[in-house]
């Protein structure tokens, strides 16, 4: 009975999204803005509750909807999809609450009616992807998600947005094409087989074809997840979208790609070859490293977050790749732990990255620009908001005791525990993973501290922030809730692992809960307690040893002259050592032009500084590729000679060749 009721909750969330979209679309001039977003928040709220109750129920699947309309493929909720369903609905619920005020503030810029409608459709598409059980419905929902997000990226109708949107459209459709091709190969040309049947069919397919299919899926889902070198659209598209959409795209849509990949490799493909798993690891590490370097040196707050998403997805795919790799080596226990760590990281990332993007919206609104160089001073003017953001920033930097750290601990602890007992080859791969992840971890801390330090602290670098005031409750609450959730999921990490089917990694007693991996255990509550205890002791030490209370306010000492915000360190200056140390990779070009004011006197001069951040994948991979295409096409153009008989002959030859191949 309870199950039926909760199944109804999930249907309600689907229907609510559609209804919200319709409401907003038919209403004149966005009058129903609040109603439709409220509806979306309610429906995704009910989806969250239903999803959580599924995870708590311990059932293996719930059939949500069965109808002949759906080509015999019912909508089904399973453990893995339920987890992603909960993440999606939770973030969507908070994002729609945030959007109520946020969109109103930008009402002059966006077409509110369309924006709200598309957002609800976008959420609906993602909900559908998670419930689909056949390639046909999966791809249909996938396209709903892709198209709605494509329009959302372009919603401010600026040139940069349109360019980013088109780029995104091309990449995502190449990816969708690859996924479709993969499904077609597996099912011998039928898209309406169920996934369960696909898994059976896949076992009869020869290994080389299977490897090709795997590569197609990897490209399809990898390009959606922003893996290097298919990531180019991500740092363009995510920042151009409105902030609550960026939060949904980075926090949740990337997870849809991960969900698709996990579903295909774990439950459809009959095992991945060693070469395949190594490719996943290499792409993952490459994304993590490349993403974090650019997260450090970027100066645009939303681009920093977008590159950080590439890095985080890289880490997650590395964990999945290691899991697949160890599977091929027969180490199922290791593999199991790695998948658990990847999922834990996914949960952590969904919350902190959505929160950070929502927060970035507030920052951008205050500074009237996305550039970090014009920010600063926000912490003093918006203490509550900056407090919530500080927690999210620390979580994103994978610092203990926050959530991402729990996942990294689980993974690396397990990796090091197994390291000594492996074969030579496996040792090499795992060591590479270990040191790269350690390097990425250090730089991620840099990127996040830069974001907070330059964006929030010290004196404001622009007039706008001087007059900015704290965000309203509707903007603040979603961010605060997400930072609270970030703490909660790290505190209850063992419980969450237990809930999603990794019960063997969790140790739970009435008093204490801990994550246990290969003999060692980590108790989140103990770390929190010890941490708070020692900071408390530090506080007590100050109170006990000194009775100086009075704090005299005075400007910062600066060699006797008054200090201005122009003297502060900027984001460019702050990240300069890293840019210098990694200049082999980033290839940034710094130009200082010195022009004397008077020709005869070289000492009094004007200096102009410019710094060009290069996108090496774009310059060295995409541009040559495009040039090669253009060059080849000049030869093909010779066929276009205007003689109609020649064209007819070509068509005829093409027909004959096609028929010969097909028959």
């Amino acid at each position, binding site marked *: 009975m309870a199950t039926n009721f909760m199944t109804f909750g999930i249907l309600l969330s689907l229907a609510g999204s559609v209804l919200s979209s319709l409401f907003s679309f038919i209403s004149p001039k966005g009058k129903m803005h609040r109603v439709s977003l409220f509806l979306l928040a309610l429906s995704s709220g009910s989806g969250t509750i239903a999803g959580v109750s599924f995870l708590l129920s311990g059932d293996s699947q719930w059939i949500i909807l069965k109808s002949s309309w759906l080509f015999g493929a019912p909508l089904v909720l399973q453990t893995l999809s339920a987890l992603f369903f909960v993440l999606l609905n939770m973030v969507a619920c908070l994002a729609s609450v945030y959007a109520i005020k946020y969109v109103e503030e930008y009402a002059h810029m966006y077409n509110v009616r369309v924006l709200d409608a598309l957002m609800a459709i976008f959420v609906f598409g993602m909900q559908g992807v998670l419930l689909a059980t056949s390639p046909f419905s999966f791809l249909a929902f996938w396209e709903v998600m892709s198209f709605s997000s494509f329009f959302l990226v372009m919603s401010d109708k600026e040139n940069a947005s349109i360019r980013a949107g088109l780029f995104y459209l091309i990449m995502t459709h190449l990816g969708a094409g690859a996924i479709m091709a993969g499904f077609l190969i597996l099912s011998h040309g039928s898209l309406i087989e169920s996934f369960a049947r696909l898994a059976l069919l896949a076992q009869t397919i020869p290994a080389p074809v299977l490897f090709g299919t795997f590569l197609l899926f990897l490209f399809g889902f990898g390009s959606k997840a922003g893996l290097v070198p298919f990531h180019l659209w991500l740092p363009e598209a995510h920042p151009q979208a409105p902030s609550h959409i960026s939060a949904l795209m980075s926090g949740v849509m990337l997870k849809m790609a991960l969900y698709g990949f996990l579903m295909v490799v774990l439950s459809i493909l009959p095992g991945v070859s060693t070469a395949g798993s190594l490719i996943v690891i290499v792409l993952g590490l490459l994304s993590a490293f490349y993403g974090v370097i650019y997260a450090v040196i970027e100066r645009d707050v939303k681009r920093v977050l977008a590159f950080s998403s590439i890095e985080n997805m890289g880490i997650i795919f590395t964990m999945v790749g290691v899991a697949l790799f160890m599977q091929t080596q027969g180490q199922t226990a290791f593999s199991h732990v790695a998948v658990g760590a990847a999922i834990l990281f996914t949960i952590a990332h969904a919350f902190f990255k959505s929160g950070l993007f929502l927060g970035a919206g507030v920052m951008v609104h205050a500074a009237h620009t996305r550039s970090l160089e014009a920010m600063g001073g926000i912490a003093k003017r918006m203490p509550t908001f900056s407090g919530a953001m500080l927690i999210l920033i620390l979580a994103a930097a994978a610092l203990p005791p926050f959530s991402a750290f729990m996942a990294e601990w689980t993974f690396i602890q397990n990796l090091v525990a197994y390291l000594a007992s492996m074969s030579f080859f496996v040792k090499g791969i795992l060591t590479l993973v270990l040191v790269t992840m350690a390097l990425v971890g250090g730089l991620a801390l840099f990127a996040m501290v830069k974001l907070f330090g330059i964006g929030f602290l010290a004196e404001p670098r622009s007039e706008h922030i001087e007059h900015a005031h704290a965000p309203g409750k509707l903007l603040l609450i979603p961010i605060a809730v997400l930072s609270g959730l970030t703490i909660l999921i790290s505190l209850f990490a063992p419980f969450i692992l237990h809930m999603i089917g990794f019960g063997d990694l969790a140790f739970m007693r009435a008093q204490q809960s801990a994550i246990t991996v290969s003999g060692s255990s980590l108790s989140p509550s103990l770390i929190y307690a010890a941490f708070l205890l020692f900071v408390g002791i530090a506080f007590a030490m100050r109170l006990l040893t000194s009775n100086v209370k009075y704090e005299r306010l*005075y400007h910062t000492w600066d060699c006797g002259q008054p200090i201005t915000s122009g003297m502060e360190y900027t984001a460019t200056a702050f990240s300069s050592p890293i840019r210098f140390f990694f200049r082999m990779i980033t290839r940034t070009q710094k130009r200082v032009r010195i022009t004397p004011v008077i020709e005869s006197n070289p000492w009094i001069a004007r200096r102009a500084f410019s710094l060009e951040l290069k996108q090496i994948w774009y310059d060295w991979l995409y541009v040559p590729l495009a040039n090669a295409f253009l060059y080849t096409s000049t030869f093909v153009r010779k066929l276009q000679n205007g003689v109609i008989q020649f064209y007819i002959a070509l068509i005829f030859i093409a027909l004959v060749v096609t028929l010969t191949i097909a028959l």
Partner: protein
Amino acid sequence: MNAIFLTLIQICFVLLIAPFTVGLVRLLKARLQGRHGATPFLPYFTIATLLKKQMVISKSTSWVFKLVPFVVLGTTLFLVAVLPLVVFGGALASLGHFMIISGILAFGAAFLVMGGLESASAFGGMGASREMTLASLVEPAMMTMFATFAVVTGVFTVDAMFQDSHILTSPALIPAFFALIMIALAENARHPVDNPATHLELTMVHEAMVLEYSGPYLALLEYASALKLTMFSLLVANVLFPMTLATDISFVALLAALGWMIVKVVVVSFALALLESTIAKMRFYRMQEYLTIAFFISFAGLIFALMHT
């Protein structure tokens, strides 16, 4: 109960000796450089004086500025309680996973950097940028170094690693030990990474960040940096002499541990003073070489350890 007592003993011992370590290094350095030098107990007076002084807080700062000293000292206290410095088997030793250790160190560094940026002056920003670079590039070296220890000993808390009998016998740990020394120098802002004696020079890292702090806040930060120096000194010494730590709470054992702690602090201080008197500080933009060497030494140690197991 014993474990809690051991931890309390360790915390008290290290808290008491920390300013002495800093003073001793300064004194020995002065003597080695032909100066007379101040008493090694001077830092106690410095801290006591700072605690009585009025605080001047920059108008540019926010609540983060006031949180920083407590978090920095709190994380350092966390490490002092968790690591095997004077005793083995303390109550919190189970929290001493190497990832937590490097994470908590990074946590403290991140807050110190925020404190440096808060002042809105170019000095603070410069120190912050440099400290952040060092902290983020030291982390991989530290993780790899600890991973080597974990692979050799088969355990994951630093406490258990140092108790393991392999710690003295495995040749694979020699590179890891050198990496630990390099990391310790970088973490504590000593030569060749930073010059702790300068003030208001463009070379400095740590001192630039705490420039705007005064009074009790500065005392907390100075004390935290003294604690960190003592902690790393003892850690380096304990790799070589793990038998000098107390494992039970008998009076004799604790007295011996106390004696050994003083001996270790004196010896390491002398080595540090000697090092700082003989080599020059590196240019900051050559720091990549130092950090790369530290990283690759620990990496080589890890590979060496893996080849032998």
